[in-house]
């Protein structure tokens, strides 16, 4: 009996001591964990800067050797001769790819911009509230389609369609990729354009309405001029999207080093196959081996292919960087006014 009582007493005092230490531990953990959590939060906040620099650093690191050993910028950017795998005469000129990217983007914008701006104006100004919700959801779903599925569509649907409609020998060309990439760029242009239109200050609109302007007059004479810079930003972001697109152009451009301009009518051959910068990297990286430097610091000629592809990556990074920063500065200006 006494033993049992003593045991109980021991257990009780142990429990109370345990609970007390637990409380102290929890309080210490509270203070410590708050500080550690806040430091973690700060670290994560800085991470974005680290990653952006990281991307530039690592892409540059892998491509740097190409730039160091006898890099001729004029030949790189202005020569259409891209023969990285030739046994005897390796040449690395990306002019054809630059033009490829340029033409596909051009066709894409010709397709996307009128329809997107029109749709943007419609959704922002001429739409009923419910219709607007539905339209925005549908546009969001359009944006969700993965690029490889778009490429698939270009390959399986647009391809035979173009052959049937134009009689061209193959349907994988600038037109095909241009239309597909255009469709892919539509959602972003519509969204930003709509934002820009709705950001026009109400005071402008109210003033015009008080003067008896119809909706269309309002849009044409007041809103569009006021939203000019925002619409420009929208188009810029669309261009950025088009330039950076990889899978769709990989599957739809026909992938041949070719400049689709020449002296014969119609001068701009949209039915020609081309290759873009992005597709070059995607298609050839699998075969380009990563070779280390020789003992004297130079690289064997086969290694240059891998490095050259990374340099194309740097070019792409730089171009899209500039486009996106410009567009973002404009968009920020709009959102501030909102």
């Amino acid at each position, binding site marked *: 009996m006494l033993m049992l009582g003593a045991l109980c007493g021991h257990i009780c005092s142990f429990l109370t001591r345990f609970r007390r230490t637990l409380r102290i531990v929890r309080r210490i953990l509270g203070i410590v964990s708050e500080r550690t959590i806040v430091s973690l939060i700060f670290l994560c*906040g800085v991470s974005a800067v680290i990653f*952006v620099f990281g991307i530039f650093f690592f892409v540059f690191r892998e491509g740097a050797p190409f730039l160091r050993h006898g890099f001729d910028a004029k030949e790189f950017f202005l020569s259409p001769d891209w023969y990285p795998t030739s046994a005897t005469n390796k040449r690395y000129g990306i002019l054809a790819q630059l033009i490829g990217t340029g033409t596909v983007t051009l066709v894409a914008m010709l397709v996307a911009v009128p329809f997107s701006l*029109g749709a943007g104006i419609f959704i922002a100004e001429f739409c009923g509230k419910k219709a607007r919700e539905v339209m925005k959801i549908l546009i969001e779903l359009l944006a969700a389609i993965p690029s490889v599925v778009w490429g698939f569509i270009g390959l399986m649907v647009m391809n035979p369609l173009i052959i049937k409609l134009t009689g061209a020998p193959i349907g994988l060309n600038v037109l095909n990729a241009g239309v597909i990439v255009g469709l892919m760029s539509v959602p972003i242009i519509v969204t930003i354009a709509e934002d820009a239109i709705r950001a026009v200050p109400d005071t402008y609109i109210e003033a015009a309405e008080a003067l008896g302007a119809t909706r269309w007059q309002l849009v044409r004479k007041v809103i569009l001029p006021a939203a000019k810079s925002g619409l420009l930003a929208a188009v810029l972001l669309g261009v950025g999207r088009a330039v950076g697109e990889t899978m769709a152009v990989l*599957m739809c451009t026909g992938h041949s080093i070719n400049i689709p301009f020449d002296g014969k009518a119609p001068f701009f051959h949209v039915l020609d196959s081309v290759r873009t910068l992005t597709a070059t990297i995607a298609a050839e990286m699998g075969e380009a081996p990563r070779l280390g430097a020789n003992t004297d610091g130079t690289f064997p000629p086969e290694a240059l292919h891998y490095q050259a592809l990374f340099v194309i990556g740097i070019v792409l990074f730089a171009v899209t960087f500039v486009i996106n920063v410009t567009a973002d500065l404009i968009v920020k200006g709009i959102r501030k006014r909102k």
Partner: protein
Amino acid sequence: MKNIDNTKNLFAATELINKKLRAQRIVKWIFGAMSITILIPLVALTTCLIIRAWPSLTWDFITDVPKQGMRSGGIWSALVGTMYTVTFSLLVAVPVGVMAGIYLNEYARDNWFTRIVNLAVVNLAGVPSIVHALFGLGAFVVFAGLGKSILSASLTLAIMTLPVIIVSTKEALFAVPVTFRMACWNLGASRWQTIRTIVLPNSIGGILTGIILQVCRAAGETAPIMFTGAVFFKAVQRGDLFPYKPTEQFMALSYHLHTISTQVPGVPESMLYATAVVLLGFVLAFNAIAIVLRTRIRNRKKW
């Protein structure tokens, strides 16, 4: 002599107004037509894809592995590979992204450093997917020595989805009024306590929406996983839930669609379409969930 004592005529439309209204109606129809034109592809293509995929869309297709050089069988190995990479990439991107968003909206002061961080987030968001692939190759496969594996690919995807998670977290947090925070600070709560008890619980919906949207994107992207671990074929058991080790190469649905439509001759058309439909269906379904979630949050506002 005009009938001016009848007030109805005072407000009758003049010829000029009628002309303008007619012009407006025409313009409205033109813009409306433009909007519909954009959406036609969405509807038409989805239907076309489903119709052509129908013969191959069976349960077997999903659980079976590719056989006969991809010409028959199913897509199980690719499906599992995608699920693995997406899950791993989220495990990294979500904590980092959400905490970065918390930092930017709750702790960061309005100085040059914050502006740089915001600029970095925007730039990270605009990097083309192929450049992400190159980064993954240079940083994870080569430099970190992870080789071509699920780990490398997931980390690459994580960095790709990070900026959007950061931005949507920021916006969700911003939607919580400052007055709540001030009330808590005056009651003696620290910033983190306020975030933990009031701000986060009331913004979790918006954060989740951003995350779900990025799940779709991670599942659909091909370029970032192309040289960081996705591979043409890997032998996997049918219906096996754990076929890949994190250090192994893997098959992924998006890459699989690419290879069977461009590099394997003789694949039955319905199988090609079925693969596309499964990928597209997955992505659109998750997107729809995110949209529904967003609408429900908007309707259930607590203030």
